[in-house]
């Protein structure tokens, strides 16, 4: 079917476009982009007043399948992704069993083909069973479709193993994504170590635990020539380390989550377990440093770290609650509200952080609407006011600290391969 997206503002930083334009889609690909295109029998969708962007990719989600399907499945997680404006998601391998072999990669891709609403890009484990001891079969997983390697949920604690992973992953030109946490410094920590942890009497998780691992990873990336990606970066110091490493030509990239840019550790006051996340919410100065790193180009991607948990699992004593927050259905609104309307970055930069940026990290031929590209499109209404209603999430879980927040801006339509998978205009 031929589809013509009309009258929108087209924002595609990869192609250098920002202005009125029509997009013609045929056979799942973009075939033409011009100021105006005659319908010529195509099905027209009038997007007057809205913004058309290359499809957003969330490069860090937890789909919980296989193993914890009561929290999320590939079907519900990808439905949440579509509802949130994402045309693709990379899923982390800390499932049960973990994605540490070709067979589990194939299982995930098969489930995504059968039940997924948007494409799923599996991330394979760095180490067998995420034990941090021996390399997992990276090559076999890459052949099966893995788009990167990570022991996410856990750091790669051994510097020796991290070195081998960065060396070995170069065969496939895929990144090693590290959850940066020096375990002996974190040990039992549940919130950022500082004034708030002291007041609440909760075990602290110092920012330096992240900084040390980011430093180590950068040094190893430099030594090996491998590509390291810093997952869910949360400290100002880490952002500074990445900035200077990039300036020295080291192959390091990083992502920041919407919750770390919208919240600080004060959100934990009152012991709300929905504000318990990993890494923890940091100080206002860290938040400001992350915003600066987003604005100056240090940050490559915004990723949600969508971590669904059943309500019963979060409704326990704070220290016993699992870490994590759902993010797929709030991310775009938070970013539009805080980053674009908040004057931190222009819209084009946000679009880059959500499309071309993650595509580059994962080596995906996505992130642009140039003719010939896959017709993955996210449509934004910059001024729509949304009230976060966790009860209406497509995700199976609703663990969000943003419940009841009113935000300006929303993703209102999601198109994957030329098919409209979500339409809330």
């Amino acid at each position, binding site marked *: 079917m031929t589809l013509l997206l009309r009258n929108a503002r087209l924002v595609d930083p990869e192609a250098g476009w920002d202005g009125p334009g029509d997009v013609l889609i045929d056979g799942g690909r973009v075939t033409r982009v011009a100021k105006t295109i005659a319908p010529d029998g195509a099905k027209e969708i009038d997007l007057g007043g809205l913004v058309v962007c290359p499809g957003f990719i969330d490069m860090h989600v937890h789909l919980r399948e296989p193993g914890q399907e009561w929290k999320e499945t590939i079907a519900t997680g990808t439905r949440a992704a579509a509802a949130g404006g994402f045309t693709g998601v990379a899923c982390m391998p800390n499932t049960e069993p973990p994605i540490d072999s070709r067979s589990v990669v194939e299982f995930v891709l098969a489930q995504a083909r059968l039940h997924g609403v948007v494409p799923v890009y599996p991330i394979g484990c760095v180490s067998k069973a995420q034990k941090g001891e021996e390399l997992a079969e990276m090559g076999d997983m890459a052949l099966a479709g893995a788009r990167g390697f990570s022991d996410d949920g856990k750091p790669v604690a051994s510097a020796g193993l991290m070195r081998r992973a960065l060396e070995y992953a170069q065969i496939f030109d895929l990144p090693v994504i590290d959850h940066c946490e020096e375990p002996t410094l974190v040990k039992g920590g549940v919130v950022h*170590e*500082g*004034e*708030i*942890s*002291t*007041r*609440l*009497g*909760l*075990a*602290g998780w*110092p920012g330096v635990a992240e900084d040390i691992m980011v430093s180590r990873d950068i040094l190893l990336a430099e030594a090996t020539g491998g590509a390291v990606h810093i997952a869910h970066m949360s400290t100002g110091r880490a952002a500074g380390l990445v900035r200077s490493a990039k300036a020295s030509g080291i192959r390091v990239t990083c992502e920041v989550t919407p919750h770390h840019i919208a919240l600080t550790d004060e959100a934990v006051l*009152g*012991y709300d377990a929905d504000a318990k996340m990993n890494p923890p919410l940091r100080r206002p100065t860290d938040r400001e440093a992350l915003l600066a790193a987003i604005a100056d180009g240090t940050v490559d991607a915004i990723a949600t770290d969508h971590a669904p948990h059943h309500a*019963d699992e979060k*409704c*326990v*004593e*704070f*220290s*016993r609650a699992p870490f994590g927050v759902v993010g797929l259905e709030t991310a775009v609104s938070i970013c539009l509200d805080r980053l674009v309307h908040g004057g931190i970055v222009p819209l084009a930069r946000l679009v880059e952080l959500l499309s071309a940026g993650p595509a580059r990290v994962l080596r995906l031929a996505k992130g642009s609407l140039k003719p010939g590209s896959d017709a993955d499109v996210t449509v934004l209404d910059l001024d729509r006011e949304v009230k976060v209603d966790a009860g209406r999430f497509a995700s199976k879980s609703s663990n969000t600290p943003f419940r009841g927040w009113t935000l300006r801006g929303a993703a209102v339509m999601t198109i994957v391969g030329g098919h409209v998978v979500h339409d809330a205009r």
Partner: protein
Amino acid sequence: MKLLSPHLLGIEPLTPDEITLILDTAVGFSSIATREIKKVPTLRGKTVVNFFVEPSTRTRSSFELAEKRLSADSLNFSTSTSSLVKGETLLDTLRNLEAMAPDFIVIRHGEAGAPHFLAKHGRTPIINAGDGAHEHPTQALLDAFTIRQHKGALSGLKVAIVGDILHSRVARSNVHLLVKMGAEVVLCGPPTLLPAGGKTLGAAVTHRMDAAIEGADVVMMLRIQLERMSGGFFPTLREYAAFYGLNADRLKRAAKDAIVMHPGPINRGVEIMGDVADGEASVILDQVTNGVAVRMAVLYLLAGGDRDAVAQER
């Protein structure tokens, strides 16, 4: 005047007036312990659940005695008898307890914020009897009562709190209370046992015990939990005692009429030497005695009583 909240979750939310109200009310109840019949009918017909998820003898006995002296019916739940050990969640336990229609739940729990969790999800007034490393409000109130008893007031005093501040709910509640009431508080311990942001609670911080207790009106020693040894917070108990143990010699640096406090149970020869614990300056047993009166006052006020009525009730 009455308390503003139906719960006592910590000292941090209390106003100075509320603290004064509780302390003044406790004065009225403290004389009951000296009477032949140590009981008043104030809470007759009320049921209090003492829900102790973390073991405690001293605090639980003190609450139980306070409840009995107010003629309330007490129900004791402890870890070994509660269904939590069978995997029941805290929320389900709360629902089951509430199904028995108690008037108060007194909770001791090893996790910070557990009383706040119960207060948020339940409908019964909650009294925090110690939550993790967060707060132990009735301990701070009984400490304040004891200080007032010996010093007349709290304002203007120098109070040194020495020991494992990092893991101490007693220290946190005391800092909140004493700072609110106008005392100068100095926290002292090895840097490994001082929390990040310690100064932000309004107290000064030092690692040198001599400096901490110099001219102090009150020296409050904290218990060293022996399991901390495995955490590597300090090399040996011997070294800890040498640097942070309170002995008679050190105590001479404090004000002449200084009092020595300890929330108990004490480790003799570690944080406090036996002769100091048993010496003239020690008010450790007064703290235990006063604990009952303070807890009676808390229960009474949360039940809706006001201070002026205490005399009539008696």
